[in-house]
C-alpha cells in the first residue's frame, strides 16, 4: 500500500512539473533556512555544559543602585567575595577568580626577547583552583598544580603553536609584558581550545599569585569597590542555590557594611548566575568576559526560519487544494473501488511527505555549499560536521516530517472528502476546499512579506543612522596604534615628534581607551559640602595633551591639559548636568573622591561637548578625562590618500623607536563600524530572508493564478466572444489578488510597527519610524504581486477563446 502511495505520488509530482517545481523550490528554500539556522542555534547553545556538574557552577554578579537604571550592573565582583563565600557557606565546595588582563593591558606575550610579541586577547589571571571548576582538556602537562606558583602559565594549543610552532612547550618560558614590567612565565600546560565550548574562551591563563595585578587581587580585602573580578563558585550536589542567593544580602553586609557605606554602595547586591546561562541570558549585564550572544537573537532567527517554511507550506496547501478538480476523478475512482477516507488521507499525506523529504535531501548539499557565506554573515565557523550530527539530522527529519504533515493535512482532508458520484459521471466543476481559507493563507503570506520589507528598511535606516550620526568626535582619517607597554610610555614624546614629521600626519595624541572601546573605569564622586556617600559614578579616561584637538572634540570651556597637570580634570557636559553644576561655575568647581578614607580633589579645568564614548545603544553618561602618561593607544590623525605609504612610514618610525612592542594598528572608523556589526549582520540576514519570503510567496501566487486562469478559461472565452477586451479580462483575474495584498498591508502595518518600535527601543539614539516606510513596503509588495499575477493573466486574456470553448 505504502509503495503504491509513493509510486503514484512520484508520478503525480513528475506530471505536474510547474506545480512540483514551485512547491519543491519553496520547501527547499524553507528547509535550507531551517537547517542553517538550526545548526547556528545549536552551535550557540550548550555552552559550558561539559564541565563536571555544570549545573552547580555559578558566577557571582553585582548590581548597585535602585530602580530601573542602577549605577552599575556587571558580571564581576570585588576581589574578596568569592573566597569569603567559600569560607562562610559549607554548600560552596570550590571557588575560583579570573581577571581579564586586557583591563590593565599586559597581554603582550612573546616566546623570547629576541622575537616579536603579540597582543593576545583573552589572557586571564586565575586562581590555582580554576581547573578544579573548569576542566579543560590538557594536551600537554597536567591541570593539577598548573597555576599553583607565581609566574606560571597555561597556554591554549592555538597560542602555543603560534609562539613555538609544533614543539613541545611545557617547561619552556614566555615573556609577558614589556620593558621594566616584563615578567618571565613558565609554561606548565597546554589545553585544547578547539573542542571547548565555554563562555571563557581562554587564550592563556597566568597564575593569580604572579607579581602585579594578581597580587593586588589576592590581598585586597574591600567588599565594595574594584568590581572587576570574575568570581565563580561550585556548589555541592543538591545544594539549594536559591537558598544561598537569599543569604547573600546578609553576607555582604556582614563583611562590608562600612566599606559599602564609604564607597556609597549601600545598595550593592550580589546575584548567582548559572554558568550554563551566561552565553545566552546575559542581556543587560555589562563587562562580560568575551562575547556573549542573546537568546532573543536566536529566537528571532528561529522565527524567521519558521516563517519561511510556513510560507512554503502555504504554497503547497493553496496549490494542492486549488487543483483538486484535476484529481477529482482519481479520488472518485479510488473511492469506488474501495478506498476509505483514511486511506486517501494517508495517500495525500504521503505525497506532501515525499515532497518535503525530497526537499530535505536536496537541502543538505545546498546548505553545505552555503556555509562559507553563512560564516561570513554571522562571523561563525560552522562546517559540514555541524550538519552531519545525529541531533541535527534527527531534528531536520522531524522538521521535514512536520512540514510534510502540516502542508498535506488540509489538502488531504479536502481532497478525500470529494464524493465519487460528483465526479465520475460528469465534468462538473467541484468546489474544493474553502476559497476563503485559501485567500486567508495568501493574505498571511503577504503579511509576512510586507512585515519583513518594513523591518529591513527600518533596520537598514537605523544602521545607516549609526554610521552617519555625528558622534561628537572625528573617526575618519585616524589610525590607532596599540601601545600599552612601559617602553612606549617612556618614549611617547619621541614617537610623537617623529610621527609628526611623517608627510600627511596632522596630529598625534594618546589615551587609555580608544573611541571604539567601552570606558569601564569609573570613580564615585561628590561635590564639596555634599554627603560623601551620595556618589555619582563618573567614567574615567586618561588622555594626553592634544587629545581633544586630534579627536576633534569641542572644548567648550577652559583649556587643554598641560604637562604640569596632576589631578586636574576635563569633564563632559553630562557631568555638569548630573552634578547640577551651572556652566559658568564649571571651571571653579572641584569634584571629590574618597578612597580608603583619604579625600582626593579633582579641579575642573575644562568642559568638552558630549561625545559618544560608548555605543549609540547607551546614553551619554558623565565622563572625566585626566592627563595620563601610560597610554594603551596612540592616535594619529592624517590627511593623505596614500594609506599604504602612511602605514609603512608609521611602522618604520615605530620600529626605530620601539623594540619591545609590535607595530599593530587599526583604522578608527572601521572599528567604530564594527561596534554595530551585529546590527549590520541583522540587516543583511533580514534582507536575505525577506527576499526569500517574497520569492516564495510570489511563486505561490504565480501557481495559484495559473490555476485560477485555468478554472476561468471558459468564462474568459465567453466574455471575449461577447466582446470583452484583454484589459477587462486581466482586471478580472488580478483584482482579487490586489485586494488580498491590500488586506495584508492593513494587517502587517501595525504588526511591523510594533515589532520595529520595540527593536528601536534598544537604541538610545534612534531614527523615527516614518510613515513612508510602510507606504513604500505596501507599494513594493503590491507591485511585485501585480507583476507576478499579470504574467499569467495576460497570457489567459490573449488566448484564442475558440480553443477554450471547444475543449468544454
Amino acid at each position, binding site marked *: 500500500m505504502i509503495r503504491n502511495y509513493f509510486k503514484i505520488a512520484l508520478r*503525480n509530482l513528475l506530471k505536474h512539473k510547474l506545480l512540483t517545481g514551485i512547491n519543491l523550490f519553496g520547501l527547499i528554500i524553507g528547509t535550507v533556512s531551517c537547517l542553517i539556522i538550526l545548526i547556528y542555534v545549536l552551535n550557540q547553545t550548550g555552552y559550558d555544559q561539559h564541565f563536571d556538574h555544570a549545573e552547580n557552577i555559578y558566577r557571582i554578579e553585582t548590581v548597585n543602585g535602585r530602580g530601573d537604571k542602577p549605577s552599575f550592573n556587571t558580571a564581576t565582583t570585588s576581589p574578596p567575595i568569592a573566597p569569603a563565600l567559600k569560607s562562610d557557606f559549607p554548600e560552596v565546595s570550590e571557588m575560583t577568580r579570573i581577571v581579564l588582563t586586557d583591563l590593565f593591558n599586559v597581554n603582550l606575550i612573546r616566546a623570547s626577547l629576541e622575537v616579536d610579541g603579540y597582543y593576545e586577547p583573552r589572557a586571564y589571571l586565575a586562581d590555582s583552583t580554576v581547573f578544579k571548576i573548569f576542566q579543560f582538556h590538557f594536551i600537554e602537562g597536567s591541570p593539577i598544580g598548573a597555576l599553583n606558583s607565581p609566574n606560571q602559565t597555561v597556554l591554549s594549543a592555538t597560542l602555543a603553536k603560534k609562539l613555538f610552532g609544533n614543539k613541545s612547550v611545557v617547561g619552556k618560558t614566555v615573556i609577558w609584558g614589556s620593558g621594566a614590567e616584563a615578567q618571565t612565565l613558565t609554561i606548565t600546560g597546554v589545553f585544547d581550545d578547539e573542542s571547548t565550548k565555554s563562555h571563557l574562551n581562554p587564550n592563556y591563563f597566568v597564575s593569580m599569585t604572579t607579581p602585579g595585578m594578581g597580587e593586588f587581587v589576592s590581598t585586597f580585602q574591600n567588599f565594595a569597590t574594584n568590581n572587576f573580578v570574575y568570581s565563580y563558585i561550585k556548589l555541592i550536589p543538591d545544594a539549594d542555590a536559591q537558598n544561598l542567593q537569599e543569604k547573600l544580602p546578609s553576607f555582604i553586609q556582614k563583611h562590608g557594611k562600612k566599606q559599602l557605606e564609604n564607597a556609597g554602595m549601600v545598595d550593592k547586591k550580589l546575584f548567582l548566575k548559572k554558568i550554563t546561562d551566561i552565553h545566552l541570558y546575559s542581556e543587560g549585564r555589562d563587562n562580560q568576559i568575551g562575547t556573549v550572544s542573546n537568546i532573543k537573537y536566536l529566537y528571532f532567527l528561529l522565527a524567521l526560519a519558521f516563517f519561511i517554511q510556513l510560507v512554503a507550506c502555504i504554497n503547497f496547501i493553496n496549490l494542492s487544494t486549488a487543483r483538486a478538480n484535476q484529481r477529482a476523478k482519481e479520488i472518485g475512482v*479510488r473511492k*469506488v*473501488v*474501495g*478506498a*476509505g477516507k483514511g486511506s486517501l488521507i494517508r495517500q495525500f499525506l504521503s505525497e506532501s511527505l515525499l515532497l518535503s523529504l525530497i526537499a530535505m535531501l536536496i537541502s543538505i548539499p545546498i546548505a553545505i555549499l552555503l556555509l562559507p557565506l553563512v560564516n561570513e554573515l554571522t562571523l561563525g565557523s560552522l562546517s559540514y560536521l555541524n550538519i552531519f550530527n545525529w541531533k541535527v539530522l534527527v531534528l531536520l527529519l522531524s522538521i521535514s516530517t512536520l512540514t510534510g504533515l502540516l502542508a498535506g493535512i488540509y489538502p488531504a482532508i479536502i481532497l478525500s472528502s470529494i*464524493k465519487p*458520484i460528483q465526479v*465520475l459521471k460528469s465534468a462538473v466543476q467541484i468546489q474544493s476546499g474553502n476559497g476563503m481559507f485559501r485567500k486567508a493563507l495568501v493574505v498571511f503570506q503577504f503579511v509576512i512579506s510586507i512585515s519583513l520589507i518594513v523591518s529591513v528598511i527600518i533596520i537598514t535606516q537605523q544602521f545607516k543612522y549609526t554610521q552617519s550620526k555625528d558622534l561628537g568626535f572625528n573617526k575618519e582619517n585616524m589610525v590607532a596604534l596599540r601601545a600599552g607597554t612601559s617602553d612606549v610610555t617612556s618614549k611617547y614624546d619621541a614617537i610623537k615628534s617623529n610621527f609628526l614629521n611623517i608627510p600627511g600626519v596632522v596630529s598625534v595624541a594618546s589615551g587609555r581607551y580608544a573611541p571604539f572601546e567601552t570606558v569601564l573605569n569609573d570613580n564615585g564622586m561628590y561635590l564639596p559640602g555634599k554627603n560623601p556617600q551620595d556618589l555619582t559614578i563618573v567614567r574615567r579616561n586618561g588622555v594626553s595633551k592634544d587629545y581633544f584637538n586630534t579627536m576633534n572634540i569641542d572644548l567648550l570651556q577652559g583649556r587643554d591639559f598641560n604637562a604640569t597637570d596632576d589631578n586636574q580634570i576635563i569633564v563632559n557636559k553630562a557631568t555638569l548636568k548630573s552634578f547640577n553644576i551651572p556652566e559658568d561655575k564649571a571651571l571653579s568647581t572641584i569634584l571629590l573622591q574618597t578612597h580608603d578614607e583619604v579625600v582626593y580633589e579633582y579641579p575642573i579645568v575644562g568642559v568638552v561637548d558630549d561625545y559618544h564614548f560608548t555605543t549609540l545603544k547607551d546614553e551619554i553618561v558623565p565622563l572625566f578625562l585626566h592627563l595620563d602618561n601610560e597610554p594603551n593607544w596612540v592616535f594619529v590623525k592624517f590627511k593623505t590618500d596614500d594609506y599604504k605609504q602612511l602605514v609603512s612610514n608609521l611602522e618604520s618610525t615605530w620600529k626605530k623607536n620601539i623594540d619591545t612592542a609590535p607595530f599593530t594598528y587599526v583604522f578608527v572608523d572601521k572599528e567604530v563600524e564594527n561596534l554595530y556589526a551585529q546590527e549590520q549582520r541583522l540587516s543583511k540576514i533580514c534582507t536575505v530572508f525577506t527576499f526569500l519570503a517574497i520569492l516564495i510567496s510570489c511563486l505561490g501566487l504565480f501557481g495559484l493564478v495559473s490555476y485560477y486562469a485555468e478554472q476561468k478559461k471558459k468564462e474568459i472565452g465567453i466574455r471575449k466572444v461577447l466582446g470583452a477586451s484583454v484589459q477587462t479580462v486581466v482586471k478580472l483575474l488580478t483584482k482579487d489578488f490586489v485586494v488580498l495584498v491590500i488586506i495584508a498591508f492593513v494587517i502587517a502595518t501595525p504588526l511591523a510597527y510594533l515589532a520595529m518600535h520595540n527593536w528601536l527601543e534598544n537604541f538610545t539614539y534612534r531614527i523615527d519610524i516614518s510613515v513612508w516606510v510602510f507606504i513604500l513596503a505596501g507599494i513594493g509588495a503590491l507591485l511585485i504581486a501585480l507583476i507576478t499575477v499579470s504574467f499569467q493573466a495576460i497570457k489567459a486574456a490573449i488566448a484564442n477563446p475558440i480553443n477554450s470553448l471547444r475543449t468544454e
Partner: protein
Amino acid sequence: MIQITNLEKFYRTEEVQTIALNKLSFEVKKGEFVAIMGPSGCGKSTLLNILGLLDDPDGGSFKFNGEEVAGYNERKRSELRKHNVGFVFQSFNLIDELTVFENVELPLIYTGVKPAERVKRVEEVLEKMQIMHRRNHFPQQLSGGQQQRVAVARAVVNNPKLILADEPTGNLDSTNGNEVMDLLIDLNEAGTTIIMVTHSEHDAKYSHRIIRMLDGQKVTENILI
C-alpha cells in the same frame, strides 16, 4: 439479491426540489442480467449510484443480499461495496497516473490482498480480457475499447457478486462495444449479477430483463428470456 421497495431520492437546491426517484420498487435475483433504460434525467444514474452503495436513498428500503443497507454510513457502505460491487463506467474512469496493471490491482490493494496473490489475480484477469500485452501501458496509450476492457478487468478482479455498468459502450464504436458486451455476457454466465444502464436498445437485448424508467418511476418491465 437486490430488493428495493418504495425507494425515494430528492435533490434539493435552495429554491427547487427535484424528485430523482419516486417510490421505485423492483427486485434483482442472483445471476440475473438486468438492463435499465429511459430518457436522460429519468433517474437511471441516481438509481445506479444507490445500488452501487455510492449514495444513500432519502426514503424506502434497499436490501442487499437480504440486509437492509438504506441508512448505512459512508464507512459501512464502502466496506460492503469493496467486497461485493464492481463498476464499469461510460468514460472508463481509469487513473491516468497508473499503468494497466496498477489500475486493475487497485481494488485488491484496498481489500488487503497480499502482493503475490495480487499479481496472480491481476494477470489472470488481464489474460481473460486479452489485454495482458498492455499491462505496463498507461491509459492514454490505449484505444477506447482497450481502456474499457481494463475497466471491466478492474471491476471483476475482486470477484464481485454484482457488476454495475453505466452505459459501458457509450464511448465505443460498435465493434469494441460488442466486445465489451460479450465480456459482460461471459461474466454473467459465470454467475455474476449485472445491472446495466443503457440508452442502446442493441445492448439492452443482451440482458434478461429490461426495466424502463420515466421521471423516477418504473414504467414497464420486459422479460427477454
